[in-house]
């Protein structure tokens, strides 16, 4: 079973709209990271949020972390076509290596 899992599996929004990707994880973590992977490229980190943090921002991106429900979310405001990508959450704990979820495929259409 997956240590980290994103949902939904896929979604599509129109340019300019906001969108949220959710992540659930199954154990006590030290940090949760969000990565973005565009077609033909390797993943690139967007945000790292540690277990003692509740929210982190990076430009149009906002990540939240709720350790009580073992969940995280990544919100993107004012989406652009270039935000089209697969978004992964990755959980790390003191006893396991970083584990990636299966990803959410986001399409931003004009």
């Amino acid at each position, binding site marked *: 079973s*997956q240590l980290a899992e994103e949902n939904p599996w896929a979604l599509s929004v129109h340019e300019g709209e906001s969108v949220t990707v959710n992540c659930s994880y199954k154990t006590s973590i*030290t*940090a949760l*990271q969000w*990565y973005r992977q565009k077609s*033909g*490229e*390797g*993943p*690139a*980190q967007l945000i*790292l949020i*540690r277990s003692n943090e509740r929210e982190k921002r990076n430009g149009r991106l906002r990540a939240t972390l709720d350790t009580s429900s073992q969940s995280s979310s990544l919100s993107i405001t004012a989406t652009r076509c270039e935000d089209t990508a697969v978004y*992964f959450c*990755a959980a*790390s*704990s*003191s006893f396991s*290596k*970083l*584990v*990636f*979820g*299966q*990803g959410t495929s986001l399409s931003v259409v004009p």
Partner: protein
Amino acid sequence: DMKVTQMPRYLIKRMGENVLLECGQDMSHETMYWYRQDPGLGLQLIYISYDVDSNSEGDIPKGYRVSRKKREHFSLILDSAKTNQTSVYFCASSLSGSSGNTLYFGEGSRLIVV
């Protein structure tokens, strides 16, 4: 320049042939990784290297071996490639193996085994 470079980017091999995938990083990172990515399965960790000649199995090491003789270079070797090893392979590096470190990924090596 912070970069992870993978070679080759594309490779077609026949079943039973040996495969060498190479990865380099210019950040003096201690830790390097090899992942494979298949549709619907996300990124699966094959091997992790904590430094020169300090390698550990990941979640799916069977059929693979690695070599790290210099800190900046990490190789993935498939001895006698199988068709089920057709995949996209990603190398990554991080400052250390501690949890919460950022991973920097290469652009991937697409391997097809026929």
